């Protein structure tokens, strides 16, 4: 369970050692000397780590955290404009508002800890699933498998010689093409079949984006029977769509 999540990224600088989100929190609370914070080093270290172990959720979260830090530091480095001529009272109100907001945020952070405990407890409880369980859109396929298959197709694209100049292929067009192909093959098509032999690099990338979009829109199903087995894509029939996203 918990071991499916990667180890948190630990920042180590001369003055701070701990997880990235803690660093951001301290920075937001004004407890970090941003000018002295070696953000380039921290980022480089994090990027090096992602080369060994790429977890999309982890990366997304950490990139936001790093970006927020960079923004804070950029603001700190910029020369401060002279305070606008506002009545002193108004400035005080703004400060009060920010203070309030920060306090509210801290309250949510605390309550998130309580929810974490409830979550942990409920993960030990099993109940009969709803009659029509949400069909897994990705059966047996990890994002990394899809990524690997994509890399293979890209490699193939690379082997071809000159590239034909862009013809303005759009994701929408490729989505329509994939759906048409799947409609003609109710038994599903192998992943490779989405990418014609003569496809250019651009076509391959756009087609892959179209596939991801179709997965997101619940229009297709992606199935891999076994690890490293060929990935097959199926159209989702209309009756598979449940009208309400949520039962009850």
């Amino acid at each position, binding site marked *: 369970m918990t071991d499916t999540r990667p180890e948190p990224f630990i920042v180590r600088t001369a003055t701070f050692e701990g997880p990235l989100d803690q660093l951001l929190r301290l920075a937001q609370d004004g407890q970090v000397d941003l000018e002295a914070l070696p953000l380039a080093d921290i980022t480089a270290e994090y990027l090096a780590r992602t080369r060994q172990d790429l977890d999309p959720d982890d990366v997304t*979260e950490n990139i936001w955290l790093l970006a927020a830090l960079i923004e804070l530091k950029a603001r700190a480095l910029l020369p401060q404009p002279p305070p606008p001529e506002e009545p002193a009272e108004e400035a005080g109100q703004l400060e009060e508002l920010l203070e309030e907001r920060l306090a509210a945020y801290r309250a949510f952070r605390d309550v*998130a800890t309580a929810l974490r405990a409830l979550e942990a407890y409920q*993960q030990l409880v099993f*109940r009969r699933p709803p009659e029509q369980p949400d069909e897994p859109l990705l059966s047996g396929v990890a994002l990394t498998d899809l990524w690997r298959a994509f890399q293979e197709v890209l490699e193939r694209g690379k082997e071809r010689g000159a590239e034909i100049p862009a013809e303005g292929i759009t994701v929408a067009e490729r989505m329509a093409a994939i759906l048409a192909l799947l409609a003609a093959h109710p038994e599903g098509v192998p992943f490779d079949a989405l990418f014609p032999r003569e496809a250019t690099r651009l076509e391959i990338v756009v087609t892959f984006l179209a596939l991801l979009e179709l997965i997101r829109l619940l229009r297709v199903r992606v199935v891999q029977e076994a690890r490293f087995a060929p990935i097959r894509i199926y159209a989702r029939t209309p009756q598979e769509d449940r009208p309400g996203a*949520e039962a009850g």
Partner: protein
Amino acid sequence: MSDLRIREVANAVECILLVSGEPVGLDQLADAVQAPAEVVAAAVALLRQEYAGRGLEVQEVAGGYQLGTRPAYADAVRRYLGAAGREPLSRAALETLAIVAYRQPITRPEIEALRGVRSEHILERLEERRLIKAVGRKPTVGRPVLYGTTEAFLRYFGLRDLSDLPPLEAPGGSPSATAPAGTEEAESQER
């Protein structure tokens, strides 16, 4: 009401809870077993008492009752199911979910103002997991989507309803409402 009547109703309720894949409300039980709500309530109480010391228990979740396994036997069930279990939510996702739960209906910009970071991706993921959903649009510039929690959210955390949420420590020590305003609106749109 006789004990025999309660016994009969309890047996019927037990059957319904076994076959149901969702929490069953008291009124739904009353309809099915054709007994007054107070008899059903007594029957549920009897069942709960009888299930003490068993592997199953009658759990009160998302406004109804459901049979569930006791946490003590989670390992055995998990070995049987061969499932690694659902991945827990990330810290950022949990925090965002907490904001939606206590401040619903709430827009993305309002959430981001509180968290201080962009939250688009996290909201999308929470929506994919059916823990939150769009409950309407705010009648302001741009008509931003308002988010609220779902019934799956209650089931996920084993809550009876939103008033069952852990109390939110009010900033500055002033008392805060745990049942957020606008909940009724969100629920009526769910029907």
